[in-house]
Each structure stands twice: as C-alpha cells, then as structure tokens.
C-alpha cells in the first residue's frame, strides 16, 4: 500500500493537504472561540455559487470562489453580532447561494468537472503549480494568524477591555473574517465546499474538549487535522472512495467519543482543582469557593430605591 507514496502527484497532494490542514486548524480554533462556526457552512456554500458563476463566465472557478467567500465574510463582518436572528438570516442566504450555484451548474454546457470538484473536493492529482500556490497561501495566512494571535484572542475574550487597552477590535474582526474566507477557499480544494466544516471546525472543536490551554488546543487541533488529511489521502489513494469522505468520517469518528467522554475528564479535573482550592482555602470566605460556576447567586440586598 505504501508504494503509492513514491508518486510525485501523491506527494504533491500530501504537501498541499498538510499546509491547508494546519492553517484550517488554527482558523477553526478562533472560529470556535469567537462563536463563528456557522461561517464554516455559510462561506463555502456562498463561495460555491461564485465558483459556478465563474465557470459559466469562462473564468477560473477558484477566482469566483475567493471573490464570493471574501465578499460574504466582509458582509458577515458588517452585520453586528447583536442583530436578531443573525444565524438564521445567514443560513437562508447561504442556501439561496447554494441554489444559485446549482442553477449555474445546470446552465453550463461544458465539462462541469471543475465545479463538481469545488463541491466535493478533488485534491488528488493537484498540479505542481497549484501545490505551490496553495502552500504559499497557507503559509501567508498562517503567518497572519500568528501575527494577530494575542490581540485576536484578547478581543475574543473581552472586547471592552481589549478596546480600552488599545486593541483595534473592529478592524481585527474584519481582518479575521477575511482570513477565514481565504482559509475556507483553501479548504474547499481539499474537502470540497460541502465538507469544509469537518476540516475547519472539527479538529478545533475536538481539541477544545481535550485541553483548555490555547497553545495546546491549537497544537492538538493541528495534529488532528493533519492526521485526518494524511489518512484521508492515503485511504483514498488505495481505494475508489473520495478523500473528503474519509476526512469527514475521521473527523466525526474522533469528535464523537471525545464529545461524549469529555465531561468525564473535565469533571475529574474540576474536582481535583476544587479539592486543591479547599486545601488552600483563604481566610476571607471559605464557603464561597465551593460553589460551581453554574449557579450565579443573586443579590440579597434590600434596597430602598431601585437603582
């Protein structure tokens, strides 16, 4: 089975897939942290409409993909978080985009291979040039995430304090969404528009249930993402089934047990920490520390006025 690795086109595939998996894992971490995972559905679907439209116009579908995903990302950025039913609106818009894409596809009279590959992913057999472009784009995007790492995490945690400390919160949010759009467009070429979520959000969502430290969460997400991609390409190269299927299955197959079992070890860790806290109980209020965060005690004051 391993002798397929000697083929350069397979090596190209592994290289491109690895680069995308790494940047997707980092992007996915921030998406989970900022509550933007729905963008992992919306952006690729809207991007697909752009790709199909581009094919209809005789342009490279990847160009249509990038234009539409970046445009959609900017629009999401301009929609404030507090807008009611934001997720519903975006869901409706994205399925509409999918419908438009299907229309474009049906109108196209030539070979629709390239558009199908946008939907379903076709990384095996990727050209040398495309590998180079993908690798460089991935590295640049990864570099941007690293450069923005601290202020992005800070403003994801607490917008107000970050703003007060001089972080350009709104600008960062917009740049972040554009980086997500680029990552989505890169991921589409590995797993296809329909399954981007599994590569983008899957590893990060799994990793967050395993550790609660940003650095380690990202490292584990990267390991998972790259592992899924390598195994996916490997199995696909040795069988007739698509890469994206394997990646999606691995992503789900690992996430499910982690998700079901994580309350066990998270609870165990919490009890360990609570026990440690009891031992070093402060003199101020020993009783208070035993509370879990779930119950927020209400104030018991009686007030003469309702301030």
């Amino acid at each position, binding site marked *: 089975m391993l002798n397929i690795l000697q083929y350069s086109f397979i090596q190209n595939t592994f290289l491109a897939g690895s680069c995308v998996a790494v940047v997707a894992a980092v992007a996915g971490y921030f998406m*989970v*942290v900022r*509550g933007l995972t729905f963008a992992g559905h919306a952006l690729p679907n809207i991007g697909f409409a752009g790709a199909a439209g581009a094919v209809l116009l005789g342009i490279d579908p990847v160009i249509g993909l990038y234009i539409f995903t970046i445009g959609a990302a900017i629009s999401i950025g301009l929609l404030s978080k507090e807008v009611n039913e934001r997720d519903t609106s975006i869901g409706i818009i994205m399925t509409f985009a999918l419908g438009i894409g299907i229309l474009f596809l049906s109108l196209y009279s030539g070979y629709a291979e390239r558009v199908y590959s946008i939907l379903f992913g076709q990384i095996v057999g990727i050209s040398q040039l495309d590998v180079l472009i993908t690798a460089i784009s991935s590295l640049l995007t990864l570099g941007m995430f*690293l*450069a*923005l*790492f*601290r*202020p992005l*995490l*800070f403003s*994801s*945690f*607490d917008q*107000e*304090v*970050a*703003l*007060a*400390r*001089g*972080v350009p919160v709104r600008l960062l949010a917009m740049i972040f969404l554009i980086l997500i759009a680029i990552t989505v467009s890169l991921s589409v070429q590995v797993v296809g528009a329909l399954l981007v979520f599994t590569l983008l959000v899957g590893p990060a969502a799994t990793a*967050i249930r395993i*550790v*609660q*430290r*940003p*650095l380690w*969460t990202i490292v584990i997400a990267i390991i998972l993402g790259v592992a899924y991609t390598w195994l996916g390409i490997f199995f696909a190269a040795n069988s007739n089934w698509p890469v994206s299927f394997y990646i999606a299955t691995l992503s789900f197959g690992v996430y499910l047990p982690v998700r079901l079992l994580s309350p066990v070890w*998270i609870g165990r860790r*919490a009890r360990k*920490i609570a026990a*440690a*806290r009891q031992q*070093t*109980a*402060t003199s*101020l*209020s020993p*009783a*208070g*520390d035993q*509370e*879990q*965060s779930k119950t*927020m*005690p*209400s*104030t*018991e*004051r*009686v*007030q*003469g*006025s*309702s*301030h």
Partner: protein
Amino acid sequence: MARETQDPVITLERVRVQFGKRTILENVNMTVNEGEFIVVLGPNGAGKSTLLKLLLGLLKPASGVIRVLGKPPRRGNNAIGYAPQHRKLEADLALRARDVVGFGLDGNRWGPGLPGARRNAIIDKALLEVDATAFADAPIGQLSGGEQQRLLIAQALLTNPQLLLLDEPLANLDISHEQEIVALVEKVCRTRNVAVMLVTHDINPLLTVADRVMYMAHGHTTIGPTNEVITSSTLTQLYGSPVEVVQALGRVFVVGAET
C-alpha cells in the same frame, strides 16, 4: 484618606457629553488625587459608564477639559487599569485563569508571544495578590462570579496602573463574595497607592471604604465625602425631586430616586 502629594490623577472641568441631541452629562467638575478611593453612584443610565469611557479615551466630550495624569485621555494607556461590568464568561472559551490574567500583561501586543519564566512569575505574583493562586490553572468556565471578578481585577493591575477603573464589580455577587471583592479592592488601593474609581449602584458595601462619593443623576454630578453627599438635601437637589436618605438596619437606603 487621600494624600495630595502630587498632581491630581484625574481632572474634569466643565465636561459635557452628548449623544446626538441628548445631553448625558453636564458641567462635570472633579479632581481625583493619587491613592483616593472614589465610589461613583447613581441610577442606571445616569452616565457612570460614560464617565469611565471618557477617562479611557473611548469617548470624547462635547466640551470641557479632561486630564488623566496630566494628559488628555487616550486609548491603550497602560497607566489605567480597567475591569468592565462582569458578565458570565463563555464556558466554551477554554482559557485558564492565568491565561485571562496574562491578557492584562501583553494581550494587546502583536504576535503569538513567547511563554517564559519571567512572564509566568509576573502572572503568578498578580494571582497571588488577588488570592487566585488556588485556581490559577482552572478553566474560567468553572469559576464562580466572585473568582472571575478577582481575575479581572488582577488583569487590570498587571501594568501597575496609577488609576483603577471598576465598572460594577459587585454586580451579581452574593454578599460574601461582595465583601471579598471590596476587601480586595481596598487592599489594592492602599498598598499600591492607586486611585480607584468604582462604579456601583449600591453604596452599602462601600460605606466605610470610600474616601469620597461621586453621585450622578439627571446629567448632574456632585462629589464629596460620603456623609455629605448621601443626604436627603444633596440628593433632592441632584434629582430635582424629593429624595429621602434613610438609615435603618445599619444600612443606608435612598428612597424616592428613580431607576
């Protein structure tokens, strides 16, 4: 009590703040000196958070002069520590207590940052100051409101500020946690000689701690020692309608003031 050893930490002269046509604050005059503990009181919407935003450089006044440590307010001033109104922090966020505190140190700097012994030592010291060492490695989603508030205060103190702005730090805390936080803030104020402006809606936990009280209502403000400001006559004048300050059960009640 306050010591006037240096120039004031905050100066406001005839400051007016407007949102569109609405005047939020009018003719605000006050000075805060080094190491003073000021409690800012008033009903909701009186402009207490607006005042903090002015000092943080997040808002500009329509007119008047504001000086923070002798200079006009600007964003990203490390000499100011800020902890906004505490909300229940996202449990999904997967950060530890020490990560949250660490933001106060370098969360606003570019790049991923390198972990290091020196950085950890500074954060450990901050955690010790707020008695958070016991849960330093716990995910924040598992901490109580009082514990999270302590972390936010530690975060605000990391740049060794000369001014600490706390917006409703006692909100949603039960009485024992309230007392913890009040004691912590007072300790921080006196040992570090840092000026504190604490916004709250109930003076009672802070009666013995505040050096002066600033009361805001209807766009007007008055500042002075607690027993001069929290009086029926002062507040009636401020509100422009009858307000009675009643002492009962060892507490102070402000009766007649609107929300």
